[in-house]
């Protein structure tokens, strides 16, 4: 679907966020970027979304151009003045699609995330987990082939996070989307992904890759399999090696 070759990003303040990054995103996979904070995960994701340009190297898209993309941030990033329905309408609205014409897509997207009954609510009436669901519904409303998620569940409690992990895998399978996911949680990355790219900081780069060969979606019992345990161990190990000496303190 996408190849990043020799991609680098140096900011004007002299920080080299990414150095010569080579990464392929394959159609249909669930790829996770795992790494300590500051290693350039967000920068890589924003580059894929076209929100920031590489200062070296290039991105090559399979179809020749960037496909429709859904983006989910760490914060729900909803418009507080708009109802849930109008928040999910946003991507369509910005394309000039009227509320009436968009209604079916919006209702579908809300049903997908289990919030069909909350269309009229305002964001502040919702819990953290529900807000994140709205954010996911908004990202899915255009049915993008590629979904980018930047630590979307990091601020949620563990029970909510587990529930959303399962829902995310179900949605991904239903929609057949490709997902690039960012996290610094080893367990979350192993549970969700078909492939993990472990990154190290200063400068940001990929140090190793881990394949998780179990099919998607997975259930809670996957957390007790030998494969899961072995991959968690491998990912922890890779992450430890990725940490620079001062990070380990």
């Amino acid at each position, binding site marked *: 679907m996408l190849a990043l070759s020799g991609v680098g990003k140096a900011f004007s303040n002299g920080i080299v966020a990414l150095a010569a990054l080579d990464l392929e995103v394959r159609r249909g996979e669930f790829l996770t970027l795992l790494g300590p904070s500051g290693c350039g995960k967000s920068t890589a994701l924003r580059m894929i979304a076209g*929100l920031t340009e590489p200062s070296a190297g290039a991105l090559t898209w399979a179809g020749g151009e960037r496909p429709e993309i859904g*983006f989910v941030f760490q914060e729900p990033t909803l418009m*507080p003045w708009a109802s849930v329905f109008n928040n999910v309408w*946003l*991507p369509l609205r*910005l394309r000039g699609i009227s509320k009436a014409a968009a209604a079916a897509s919006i209702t579908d997207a809300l049903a997908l995330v289990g919030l069909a009954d909350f269309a009229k609510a305002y964001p*502040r009436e919702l819990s953290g987990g529900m807000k994140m669901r709205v954010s996911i519904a908004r990202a899915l409303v255009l049915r993008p082939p590629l979904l980018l998620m930047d630590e979307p569940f990091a601020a949620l409690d563990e029970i909510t996070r587990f529930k959303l992990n399962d829902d995310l895998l179900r949605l991904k399978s239903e929609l057949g989307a490709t997902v690039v996911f960012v996290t610094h949680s080893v367990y979350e990355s192993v549970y969700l992904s078909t492939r993990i790219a472990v990154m190290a900081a200063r400068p940001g780069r990929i140090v190793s890759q881990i394949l998780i060969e179990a099919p998607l979606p997975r259930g809670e019992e996957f957390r007790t399999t030998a494969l899961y345990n072995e991959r968690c161990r491998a990912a922890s190990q890779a992450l430890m090696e990725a940490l620079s000496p001062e990070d380990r303190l």
Partner: protein
Amino acid sequence: MSEAARGSAGGRVLDVILPILVFLAAVAGWEAVVRIRNIPHYLVPAPSLVATTLVSDWPTLSGSLWVTLKVTFSALFAAVVGGVGLAILFAQSRWIERSFYPFAVILQVTPVIAIAPLLVIYLDPPTAVLACAFIVAFFPILSNTTLGLASADHNLVDLFKLYGASRWQQLIRLRLPAALPYFLGGLRVGGGLSLIGAIVAEIAAGTAGQGSGLAFRIVESTFRQNMPRVFAALVLIAVTGITIFLFFTLLTHLLLRHWHESVRRRDT
């Protein structure tokens, strides 16, 4: 109705009743002191005399009230159009903001009472008074709206870019709604200042002004030692100020009640 809700409703009733009681007590005390001490009405008129003056002089006073209201709201309207317009222009380019913002600050920090006499020379008195009221109301609206337009969630800004939103869409759908609470704060301050500006400027215009606003009535009545009328005019000014404040507070509540933290209602 829950226990907590009834408690807070009771709390709101008290919020109204307590100040009214304090006010009535103060007025009664004032009336008593004036009567017991036999204070002459050209020094301090009793509240009852102020009230009867308000009624007997109503034809003159209402005309002046109307003039003052017209100046206050014309100036506020101009300040809203100018302040929001300039803030939107600032939001388009940091260079424009950097070039012009200092002048807005200079206008703000120079006391309007010091500018007023000059303006009276250059402009005809009614326009000068309007200009003064505009100058004081303009800045809080400009600076608050500028801040509001710049404080849209940067992730939302990115999201708008991701979906290919035009500058216009970004302004209408994102920056203006995000700026609304800031703008309303500026409007509440600007509304009060615009009334103050209208009064101060009219006093500064002094005898040069053939104006007939409430400030002019105060100057004229002081001159003639007609204290009851001075106090009646003061009452009208205070009531106008309070009404403006309450009006914009209500407007803020209506516009923001669904989403903004400042108007969050909660049970305890």
